[in-house]
């Protein structure tokens, strides 16, 4: 159990580092997908299968596809990879890297002093998720529904355009 967790955590960290260091945007996104998948495995191991599958369905299956979609439309080629290579110089990343290394050491120290941090495994089934969503957190669900509605209305407003009729025969039939 612990070994499985550490392996997945290792994969997650490595793939996330690869996301940052890849020059080609599509390769970076592929590593991000692997990172999301391994996070979902971690959810599984921690006894939250529902959250794990939602992670795959929503993040890996929908949002990342849209990311790739946009990148495909932008047609980023070798020039972008070259530009990225120029941007990712040691001068840029060395400062944040040192700072996060300090945080990492601190984290290891904290983990080692908090001995026997046994997580009590309790599988959360979909029913429990539903009950907690629609009882104590109902207001959050409703607010996020409103937010999404606002997003949809906004997108529909920005995306609307008058129908242009290109052919005279169509014009007679359809007087819009």
């Amino acid at each position, binding site marked *: 159990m612990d070994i499985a967790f550490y392996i997945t955590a290792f994969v997650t960290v490595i793939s996330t580092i690869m996301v940052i260091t890849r020059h*080609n945007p*599509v*390769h970076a996104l*592929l590593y991000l*997908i692997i990172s999301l998948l391994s996070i979902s495995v971690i959810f599984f191991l921690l006894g939250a*299968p*529902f959250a794990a*599958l*939602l992670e*795959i*369905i929503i993040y*890996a*299956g*929908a949002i990342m*596809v*849209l990311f*790739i*979609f946009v990148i*495909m*439309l932008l047609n980023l080629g070798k020039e972008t990879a070259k530009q990225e290579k120029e941007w990712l110089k040691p001068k840029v990343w060395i400062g944040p890297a040192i700072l996060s290394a300090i945080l990492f050491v601190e984290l290891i120290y904290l983990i080692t002093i908090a001995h026997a941090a046994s997580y009590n495994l309790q599988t959360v*089934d*979909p029913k429990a998720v539903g009950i907690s969503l629609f009882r104590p957190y109902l207001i959050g669900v409703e607010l996020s529904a409103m937010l999404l509605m606002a997003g949809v209305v906004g997108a529909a407003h920005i995306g609307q355009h008058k129908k242009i009729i290109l052919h005279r025969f169509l014009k007679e039939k359809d007087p819009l």
Partner: protein
Amino acid sequence: MSTMIQYVLMIVIVLLTLTTIAAWLIWLERRMLALWQDRYGPNRAGPFGLLIVVADTIKLFFKEDWIPPFADKTIFVIAPPIIGTTVLMSFVIIPFAPGILIADLNIGLLFFLAMSSLGVYSIVLGGWASNNKYSLLGALRGASQMISYEVFMGLSLMGVVMLSGSFRLTDIVIAQKGCWFIITQPVGFVIFMIAGIAETHRLPFDIPEAESELVAGFHSEYSGMKFGMFFIGEYMGITLISSMVVTLFFGGWLGPAFLPPLVWFTLKTFVFILFFILLRASLPRPRYDQLMEYGWKILLPVALLNLIITGGIVLMMNK
């Protein structure tokens, strides 16, 4: 230890059966298409032309495995196996008969949805890595089609989940003992079927590879066994959607006792596979924007209405 061996044995059996079925489906499809179009179809190699599959496979293996120099080589190679892997992973949760299944997850239905949502990467990455305008167009169409139809697929299944009260497929099948869900959830069935055809990008919704406009769409640049993987993935997808339809709406392995449960399951699944082939034989392909409009303007409201009405009825019954 013995349960471990049992697991491995089950996995191997399911894997071999599925890949074999997917391969012979090519023959079945060509024969049935020929029948419905009043011709013979492949009838030379072996009895009834059955060996055409072997001949085709050998041909695919000996074709030149060409990777275009302008392609993104790694992704070009990664893309084809993804579809087969995700479809085969989905079969993990399907109960073929009582006791004959690999994993009885309590979130089985969500697992199926997750795997089918990952399958889209095969098309998107394959089309993008080919670095070819036709492939890219096919990939874009495939991505938007599969993402949108996933939404309706998920929504159409929620009615079944409400009625059976579980995401576990065995529970769903057992809940259909009195009455199959096709009777209580006909709208859900129709939406799931349409979304399933769009998810497997089969005719009439094979818009990502529409050969009359896009050469061969996302797999224009693929040859040899890499193309074969896309091809087999498609047939495994048909088998998957058919067996999901049977499990969710047609009572899975349930049936009169004179035949064993596994035979009932197989028979029902083959009826739906034949239905898929009949669709290919008879329907024309819609235009791309028509497909999207049809999805968002008709299927989405209908799926939501179905959900609300089912929820209301379930609440009334439980009172």
